[in-house]
């Protein structure tokens, strides 16, 4: 009889212990007011009988108040950051549609012309991409390139995150007027320091404050988006010279 009682007491104490644990772990969400009605009632019933859990709940409330009082450190977005993001998105989109665009670009002119007369950074970039494409095109037997001297290529060489550089290679769109080009240059405080190469590549210099890090990315992005420009590539490391005439 007594043994039975003891067992019963033990069983009920174990049940209470489990309930206590289950309720205890719900306290943070009881306090933040997001429990479903049934759970909330269960917690309230238990709190009425358990001083320990009442203390936990009080402490959790206190903690919640401290959290809500914590100042939110959140500046407004800097335009440069959005510009960088949009440039990355452009890059992603270009990657998605690259084969097509590149094909079109190469059809518009022979890669050899571009290679022969561009400055070294452009040459390297174009060479790498052309090599990849020639493999594809070679199979298609489409290697009869026409050498066009003046038609600028469509945009197909870009860098997502260029190194700081003061000089940028640019090809202006055929339809761009002199006035439009001047306005564009003024908008980036740029100056033409060399060119055009036989392919129509100009070397553009941007002033020092605009030539580093984020600012350069913004300038490049701006150039890429403008209708007057069909080709933009930064010169790595602000190398001097660029392409002579």
């Amino acid at each position: 009889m007594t043994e039975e009682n003891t067992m019963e007491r033990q069983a009920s104490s174990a049940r209470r212990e489990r309930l206590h644990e289950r309720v205890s772990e719900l306290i943070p969400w009881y306090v933040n007011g997001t429990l479903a009605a049934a759970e909330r009632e269960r917690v309230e019933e238990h709190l009425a009988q358990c001083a320990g859990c009442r203390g936990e709940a009080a402490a959790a409330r206190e903690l919640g108040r401290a959290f809500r009082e914590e100042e939110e450190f959140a500046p407004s977005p800097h335009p440069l950051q959005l510009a960088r993001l949009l440039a990355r998105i452009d890059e992603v989109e270009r990657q998605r549609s690259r084969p097509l665009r590149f094909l079109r670009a190469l059809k518009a002119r022979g890669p050899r012309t571009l290679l022969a007369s561009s400055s070294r950074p452009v040459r390297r970039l174009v060479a790498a991409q052309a090599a990849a494409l020639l493999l594809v095109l070679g199979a298609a037997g489409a290697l009869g390139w026409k050498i066009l001297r003046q038609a600028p290529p469509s945009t197909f060489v870009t860098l997502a995150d260029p190194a700081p550089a003061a000089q940028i290679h640019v090809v202006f769109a055929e339809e761009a007027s002199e006035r439009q080009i001047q306005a564009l240059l003024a908008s980036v405080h740029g100056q033409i320091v060399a060119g055009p190469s036989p392919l129509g590549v100009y070397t553009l210099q941007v002033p020092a404050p605009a030539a580093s890090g984020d600012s350069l990315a913004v300038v490049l992005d701006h150039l890429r988006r403008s209708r007057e420009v069909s080709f933009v590539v930064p010169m790595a490391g602000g190398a001097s010279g660029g392409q002579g005439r």
Partner: protein
Amino acid sequence: MNQATSSDDELSQLRRVAAGDRKAFEALYHLYYRRLFAYLWKITRRGEIVEEVLNDVMLAIWTGAARFDGRSRPSTWIFGIAYHKALKALARLQPVAAWPEPETREEPEPVDADEPESLMNRRELKTTLGKALGALSPEQRAVVELTYYYELPYGEIAEIVGCPVNTVKTRMFHARKRLKQLLPRFGIGATG
């Protein structure tokens, strides 16, 4: 009510982003920038990586918006992406286990419980709380912030951090234990 409306707005915005609408994307960016900044800072506590991670998150929204199925709230989906990007960025920073578990001992000094109440001004409290939170693992910290600061139900937190509800409760349990050690003065240690 209000929340439902804004949630619907965000949903239609996300749909437009999925269709490649940049204007909608920029609007979403402006809508979320400060929220994400604060949230990422709370999870990482590393100011130097917040902006970069934020851009990663937004880029993931751009490329992944078409996969958003609308079963959860847009904010849940976005905070989920942010949570995972934040953890990844932290892992890149410190490839070795850099977050001591509650059992290991490398903690900020507990606050002296005997110090006079008068000295315990709000600012100090906040600093103390900040330090204590810094001692939690990012996973624990996320659960704690999402509960106490963002006041979200555990089910939604489980969605954001991408784990079962029980794991959320376990992380909270350990986080509370840890905070008790570090914040005796908060009254949190009062009841064992």
